[in-house]
């Protein structure tokens, strides 16, 4: 029964988008729009949760619109339901945040119509049951999010980001279109059911995998297709950034899973998993290294999304490799890890983007070099951001650690793989994952430490105010969920089981609810186990006992004084460590080769009173080596053909005639 209701709600969501055009001019209009999206998202969330917990099974619906005489197919199964939970949880929280944050919007008419449309687009992708509706919804999602990225298009950087996003989005849709074409085969069964039944030859199946990787990967931000993401995500208003980074990338992951795990059927060759695995490992490490080099808070978060997409793809790659070797129990672990990380990343990344939105409202700054000391004027925002930062640094007992732990267990679970390449690849990817986890912690010490700690580096940071209650509620709901998913991971794993079973020939992890103390037991209890609840309990009890005993028995006195700083405290906040200086050791260790980072001290000549300057030069290898040549080639070719615009009518006619002759000749020769 839930699918028709769901579609009706999506229609209402679209109508809310239409109302948004009018609401933008009314006082309090944005409250009404965001209130409506909040209510609809909560209902959708509950529907999806009920569907997910009901177990496996598919519900389909054919509606008489879409392609003429063919109709539009919709379907709802456990996999869709899980991603619907992620999307609508993110949507509900972003709407709640926007109830407060949206008041500060300078041009609401550019945000209000597109926000509900964007939500509806993402939901539609998840319930699409044929290639046409899928691609239509996918494009709808892309275009509406593009409009949101362009909300502040007066800034030239945003306009550039929007252009790049548009190009990459169309490229992605093109590859997905081709992938669906191959899946449908010559008979052209364009519904998902027909595609599932249609057996694709191994060579073409590999091509479908590559196309799906390109199409879904470009939307999710897999290196080297990530270039648009760190520009476009931060350009949108912060609650939209949270949705794009936390949720839309997950819709892309859904697209990949749907095509590769579901429509394509069982993987034939082990190297499929190897390719996805290697790509995931590289994406994770490069994403976090790029993030460490950023000074813009929102851009740092966007690059960190790239890292997490890498972690998710590591899990998916492992699952493919296991399935190809018919190791379904291990594949269940890898899939659970990947889906768990999908949920976790959507929670903490939304939280962090909302936090950065609160900072942006309070200070008008995204550049960390102008922030600092915000923990004093904004203690609650700081606490919520800290929880998000700790969760994304994979610190126990929060949720980010659980999914990374599961991924590590999936790497370690069965070393006996028949393929030599996998034997080398899996531990190497494990090392990449370990490196990126450690670097993520560094990245978030930087993000939180420079933004919220220390002394204010600019007057705006000193005069910041705490954000409104709606925004704080939204952030603390997410922070609470981060903690809950961290201490009760077993319940989440049980919730995922229907989706995992659907993709994995019904092989599952053991039921976690019935484990003593709600311990997470991925395989059996003689193998590795983890209990976040006990971790929290132990840390909490020992910390509080220590504090109580010390204050009771020893000393509880505090005296305030100037900072010590080895006897040379300097009142100027300029002497603090900045984002750039914090990342300097990492830049020297990792960046000198990867980013060709060079530092140069420019000394004025003797007698000159100018200060010495430290100049840092950083290159983006992927952009400069991968994209700039392509752009240059396109420009070169088009300027070559530019003269075709200025021909006389005779020459145009000659050109048309020539083209006709060539085509006819081609036809004759081909036959």
């Amino acid at each position, binding site marked *: 029964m839930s699918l028709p209701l769901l579609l009706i709600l999506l229609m209402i969501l679209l109508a809310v988008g239409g109302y948004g055009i009018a609401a933008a001019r009314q006082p309090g209009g944005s409250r009404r729009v965001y209130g409506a999206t909040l209510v609809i998202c909560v209902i959708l969330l509950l529907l999806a949760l009920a569907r997910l917990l009901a177990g496996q099974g598919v519900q389909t619906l054919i509606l008489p619109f879409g392609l003429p005489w063919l109709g539009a197919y919709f379907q709802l199964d456990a996999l869709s339901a899980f991603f619907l939970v992620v999307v609508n949880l993110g949507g509900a929280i972003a709407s709640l945040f926007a109830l407060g944050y949206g008041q500060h919007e300078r041009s609401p008419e550019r945000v209000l119509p597109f926000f509900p449309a964007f939500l509806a687009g993402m939901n539609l992708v998840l319930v699409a049951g044929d290639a046409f509706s899928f691609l239509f919804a996918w494009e709808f999602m892309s275009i509406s999010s593009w409009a949101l990225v362009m909300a502040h298009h007066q800034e030239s950087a945003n306009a550039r980001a929007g252009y790049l996003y548009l190009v990459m989005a169309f490229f992605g849709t093109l590859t997905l279109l081709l992938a669906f074409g191959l899946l449908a085969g010559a008979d052209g069964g364009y519904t998902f059911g027909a595609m599932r039944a249609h057996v694709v030859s191994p060579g073409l199946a590999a091509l479908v995998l590559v196309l799906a990787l390109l199409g879904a990967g470009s939307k999710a931000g897999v290196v080297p297709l990530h270039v648009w993401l760190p520009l476009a995500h931060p350009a949108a208003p912060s609650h939209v950034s949270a949705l794009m980074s936390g949720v839309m990338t997950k819709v892309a992951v859904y697209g990949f899973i749907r095509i590769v795990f579901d429509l394509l059927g069982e993987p034939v060759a082990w190297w499929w998993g190897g390719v996805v695995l290697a790509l995931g490992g590289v994406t994770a490490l490069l994403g976090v290294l790029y993030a460490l080099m950023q000074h813009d808070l929102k851009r740092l978060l966007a690059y960190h999304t790239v890292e997490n997409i890498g972690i998710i793809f590591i899990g998916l790659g492992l699952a493919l490799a296991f399935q190809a070797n018919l190791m379904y129990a291990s594949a269940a672990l890898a899939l659970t890890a990947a889906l768990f990380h999908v949920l976790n990343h959507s929670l903490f990344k939304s939280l962090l983007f909302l936090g950065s939105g609160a900072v942006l409202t309070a200070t008008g700054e995204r550049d960390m070099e102008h922030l600092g000391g915000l923990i004093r004027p904004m203690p609650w925002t700081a606490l919520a951001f800290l929880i998000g930062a700790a969760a994304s640094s994979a610190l126990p007992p929060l949720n980010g650690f659980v999914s990374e732990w599961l991924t590590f267990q999936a790497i370690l679970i069965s070393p006996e793989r028949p393929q030599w390449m996998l034997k080398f690849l899996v531990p190497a990817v494990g090392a990449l994952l370990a490196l990126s986890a450690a670097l993520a912690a560094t990245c978030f010490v930087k993000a939180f430490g420079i933004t919220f700690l220390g002394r204010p580096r600019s007057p705006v940071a000193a005069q910041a105010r705490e954000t409104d209650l709606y925004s704080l509620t939204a952030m603390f709901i997410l922070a609470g969920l981060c903690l809950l998913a961290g201490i009760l991971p077993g319940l989440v794993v049980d919730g995922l089981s229907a989706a995992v079973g659907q993709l994995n020939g019904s092989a599952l992890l053991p039921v976690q609810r019935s484990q003593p103390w709600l311990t997470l037991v991925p395989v059996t209890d003689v193998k590795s*186990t983890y*209990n976040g609840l006990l971790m929290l309990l132990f840390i909490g009890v020992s*910390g509080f006992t220590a504090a109580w005993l010390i204050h009771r028995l020893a*000393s509880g006195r505090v005296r305030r004084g100037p900072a010590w700083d080895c006897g040379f405290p300097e009142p100027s906040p300029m002497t603090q*460590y900045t984002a750039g200086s914090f990342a300097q*050791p990492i830049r020297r260790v990792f960046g000198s080769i990867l980013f060709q980072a060079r530092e140069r001290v420019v000394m004025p000549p003797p007698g000159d009173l100018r200060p010495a300057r430290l100049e840092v030069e950083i290159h983006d290898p992927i952009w400069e080596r991968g994209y700039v040549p392509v752009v240059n080639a396109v420009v070169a070719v088009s300027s070559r053909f530019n003269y075709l615009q200025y021909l006389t009518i005779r020459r145009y006619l000659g050109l048309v005639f020539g083209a006709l002759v060539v085509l006819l000749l081609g036809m004759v020769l081909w036959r």
Partner: protein
Amino acid sequence: MALMADYLVQGCQMALMLLLAPLLTGWIRWVKARLLRRRGPSILQPYRDLLKLLRKEVVLADSASWLFRVAPYLIFSALWVGASLVPTFASGLPFSWAADLIAIVALLGTARFFLALAGLDVGTSFGGIGSSREMMIASLAEPAMLMMVFTLSLLAGTTELSSVARFMSTADVGLRVSLALSLLALIMVAIAENARIPVDNPATHLELTMVHEAMVLEYSGRHLALIELSSSLKLLLYFSLIGCIFAPWGMATAGSTPGAYLYGTAIYMAKLALGGFLLALFETSIAKMRVFRVDEFLGAALMLGLLGALLLFVSRGL
């Protein structure tokens, strides 16, 4: 009844960790002083320092926030819990299933995360330099340690420490290249993570190369006492870890007689004394390296760890 005994053993382990940590630090300092032909303070000096610091008032910088005051308790409890989960005198502790080796590594990460934030909190240049370098060191040391975990897990089939210790004390481990590589990697990581020479100098102040001490420069009174105790606990944790994985002899098993537990404790103390002596000897015989040589040192540890794991993926016999 057996359950009560188990919990008692776990409680003993927690208390033992807390009691032994300053003693180990004092022992290493004493041996170092003797090797330098100084008389050196008593082994019990760290206890006296801690008591003195605990009774003093805290002088808090004007710009310090609540995080600065909460961090010492968090760091202390994370490290204490971590140290208590490593089998020392007995394997099969009742809560050993609550956190495996990966979780212990992550707990160390939690402590480090908050320590680095505390270093940035006051907004001084020294705090920043310490935090930034500590995180640089950690971002290489932590993966190196996880590679060691990989190797162990491939051999023992689990990442849970009690089972690993039980497995390592059986005869079918044998001499393996991969284990030797992991041991080397773990020792290198331990030296770096505990701010020992040649990576950092625990006895220095006012030196531009200091890392750990620069981070905690603003702490005083009871906060400093907790930070010092946490550092000692961390050192003890690494010693116990090396002992429990690579020298798991003499450990009592779950449900042993009290005599076996006492024997295990004595053996454990002997291991600590020997380890402390070796560390002191190593530290007095080597000079501190430049901070930007540390990445080569730890990069080598990471590569050794990865090599150990790779060897096992290729052949289980190595």
